[in-house]
């Protein structure tokens, strides 16, 4: 029984809906409205565009395939085999998620470039730049997402069919074909869409390591930032909306986003010793590989000029700070803190209203809240430039906060939506009969019950704001530039050592934040179990 909805709630709902429409849909509409026939004709007939489309699709397909198959194997190992220190592996596998995608491209250059650390040690020949470089960097960058999604899917798989199959004497291969595959089909399709979209819309990796191999996001960046051709930028932006839109539509048709609170019977299945050992070795290799870029940054950041002058130095530290790393760090922290705090308040409020009251206004707000998931950062960036160029917001910290808030809104919203759906639906009604208002129940009962989700939402906003460059690349200036933007500019000047140091700096902030959130969640858990 849901208590009757009052006016305050309805007005908050409409306010949030209007905000999201202005922040997501209006800029996109403006961008699409600016596309003229001549631009469209010019862009669509240019062979450069079609080459970029071909490049983008082929390299993203290859990288998605590699990332998903390696992640799938890892997810199988972790969920089905006896891996010691499962938690450590999960942390390691997610580590690449805490550094910007530009850094992944750079990490590869440092390791395998013409004078890379590993190139010199192993004596490898051949160029890294181009197709395989982008593919490899994208695999690094997208592996954590693929792994976390797949691991989550496999962890909650109902194991009772396997037990039944075991009793019936059905072989492993048959079990895989008739139980695992059918179960995985839809979620796997979601993972493929998500990973492909992430790679095809990323421009950090191809920017650093693409060389002459131009992909769509890089082309768009060049058109807009280099040539100030907003018209053709918009056309490419519209093209880049397609994969995300398709994946969004697919997801909303195949399963109701957010309502996956089923209880499955999960028990660890028996696996042979040999397979266990192989699984452990595989997970070990993944761990080391995931750590490689970080290790190479650590090495490079404190070397004078690799590989000519290998003396240990703090030059890169002082160089970075002389060039404003301190100010940019402050910018980044201000942006991340503002985005995280306002983002949590808004997405939690939106999720509360949609999860715990019915009606068409709830559905409208739910839809508005998840649409941003279908808009790639660079597209959002250019759309913001076009819409806000003439307003007071342009060139301020405010627009960077706004664009990040919008860009990262959907995931934390869904986290809150899921956990608020699981909280007993009669709490507000009980409160009403006891003379305790809705907002008090939220404050005293519902927020404490969902505290760990709130912590997770906060850190999601914070970490992503710390590392993003996609949307902010179009919107920041010398004064408001966040720290992550130093990486591509150092790189453009071949100062890989300083770029490595900045990447480490971002990683350090994010790791600290993750650790802090872990501690807070530990305290919350202990408090929950107390008494």
């Amino acid at each position, binding site marked *: *029984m849901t*208590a*009757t909805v009052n006016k305050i709630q309805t007005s908050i709902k409409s306010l949030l809906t209007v905000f999201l429409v202005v922040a997501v849909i209006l800029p996109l509409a403006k961008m699409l409205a600016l596309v003229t026939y001549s631009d469209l004709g010019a862009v669509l007939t240019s062979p450069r565009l079609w080459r970029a489309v071909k490049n983008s699709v082929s390299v993203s397909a290859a990288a998605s395939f590699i990332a998903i198959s390696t992640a799938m194997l890892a997810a199988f190992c972790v969920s089905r085999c006896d891996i010691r220190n499962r938690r450590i592996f999960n942390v390691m596998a997610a580590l690449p998620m805490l550094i910007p995608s530009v850094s992944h491209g750079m990490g590869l250059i440092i390791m395998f470039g013409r004078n890379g650390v590993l190139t010199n040690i192993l004596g490898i020949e051949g160029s890294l730049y181009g197709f395989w470089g982008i593919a490899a960097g994208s695999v690094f960058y997208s592996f954590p997402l693929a792994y976390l999604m797949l691991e989550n899917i496999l962890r909650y798989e109902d194991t009772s069919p396997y037990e039944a199959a075991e009793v019936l004497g059905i072989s492993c291969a048959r079990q895989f074909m008739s139980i695992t595959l059918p179960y995985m089909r839809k979620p796997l399709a979601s993972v493929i869409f998500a990973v492909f979209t992430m790679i095809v819309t990323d421009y950090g990796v191809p920017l650093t390591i693409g060389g002459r191999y131009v992909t769509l996001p890089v082309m768009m960046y060049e058109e807009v930032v280099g040539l100030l051709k907003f018209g053709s930028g918009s056309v490419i932006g519209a093209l880049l909306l397609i994969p995300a839109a398709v994946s969004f539509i697919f997801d909303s048709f195949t399963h109701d986003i957010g309502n996956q609170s089923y209880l499955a019977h999960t028990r660890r299945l028996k696996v042979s010793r040999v397979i266990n050992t192989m699984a452990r070795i595989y997970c070990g290799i993944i761990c080391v590989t995931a750590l490689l870029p970080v290790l190479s940054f650590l090495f490079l950041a404190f070397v004078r000029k690799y590989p000519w002058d290998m003396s240990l130095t703090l030059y890169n530290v002082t160089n970075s700070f002389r060039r404003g790393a301190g100010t940019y760090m402050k910018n980044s922290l201000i942006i991340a803190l503002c985005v995280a705090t306002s983002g949590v308040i808004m997405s939690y409020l939106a999720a509360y209203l949609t999860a715990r009251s019915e009606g068409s206004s709830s559905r409208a707000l739910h839809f508005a809240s998840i649409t941003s998931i279908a808009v790639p950062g660079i597209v959002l960036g250019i759309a913001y430039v076009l819409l806000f160029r003439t307003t007071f917001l342009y060139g301020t910290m405010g627009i960077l906060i706004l664009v990040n808030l919008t860009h990262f809104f959907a995931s934390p919203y869904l986290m809150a939506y899921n956990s608020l759906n699981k909280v*007993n*639906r*009669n*709490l507000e*009604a*009980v*409160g*009403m*009969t*006891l*003379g*305790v208002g809705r907002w*008090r129940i939220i404050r*005293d*009962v519902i927020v*404490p*019950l969902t505290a760990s989700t709130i912590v997770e939402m906060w850190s999601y906003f914070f970490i992503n704001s710390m590392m993003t460059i996609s949307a902010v690349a179009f919107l920041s200036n010398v004064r408001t530039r966040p720290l992550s933007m130093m990486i591509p500019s150092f790189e453009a000047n071949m100062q890989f050592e300083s770029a490595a140091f900045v990447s480490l700096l971002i990683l350090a902030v994010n790791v600290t934040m993750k650790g802090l959130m872990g501690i807070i969640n530990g305290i919350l858990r202990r408090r*929950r179990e*107390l*008494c």
Partner: protein
Amino acid sequence: MDLLNLPVKLQARGLTMRYGANEILGGVSFDAKSGEFLSILGPSGCGKTTVLGILVGLLKPESGSVFKDGADITGVHPSKRGMGIVFQNYALFQNMTVLGNVEYALRIKKETRGQSREIAASIIERVGLKEHMHKKPHRLSGGQQQRVAVARTLAMGPDVVLLDEPMSALDAATRLQMREELIDIKDTFGTTMIYVTHDQEEAFALSDRVIVMETGKISQFDTPENIICNPANEYVRDFVVRNIELKLKSLTKYINNKI
């Protein structure tokens, strides 16, 4: 207890309700006497929970009124009706202890702020949860959690307590025990109880009178004995009486075998 001599506590007059094109209630009227244990019995979807929601004020009827002690309370805020409700899944505040749950609303209410702990502790003791006072709900059994929900409601001093299928999550043995306890609580606190259930046996065992509902309408409203002896129509016969006959048959078989 002679019901005829008791004053009327609660009256429902012509309650109707619809969600879109679906008629949920088509004119429901009844009264509950002071101190009565009244059950609303019916299959799921018959509208019994909607009646409860209207009585306590969480739902607004499309038409019809609710009277308490003779006064029209249809538009009165749920917290000002002197009524409490216990939900099917109890809806306890999982982040608070038993004491916290019972004390919470008292602490917010102006009149009881000072003695809130005292009141809460005495009620917890009276429902037999004294030794669990400082535990959180997830450490208690289903029956104990239900008692916390009842105590939380009783703390506000209602003279009518509504219960929405409160036993459905309990095992058979606990249900039997909770039946006794509910009657005890009703007698100690002198409250009128309105109990919604789909379990015939429970309704007949607990109640002074039973309302049998069928898709938004009252089929029969009488004492358990009268319903069993004179079912008003086919529906009541099917839903209520036949069920009891079946049980009786197996019971007779059992006794015959024993002998």
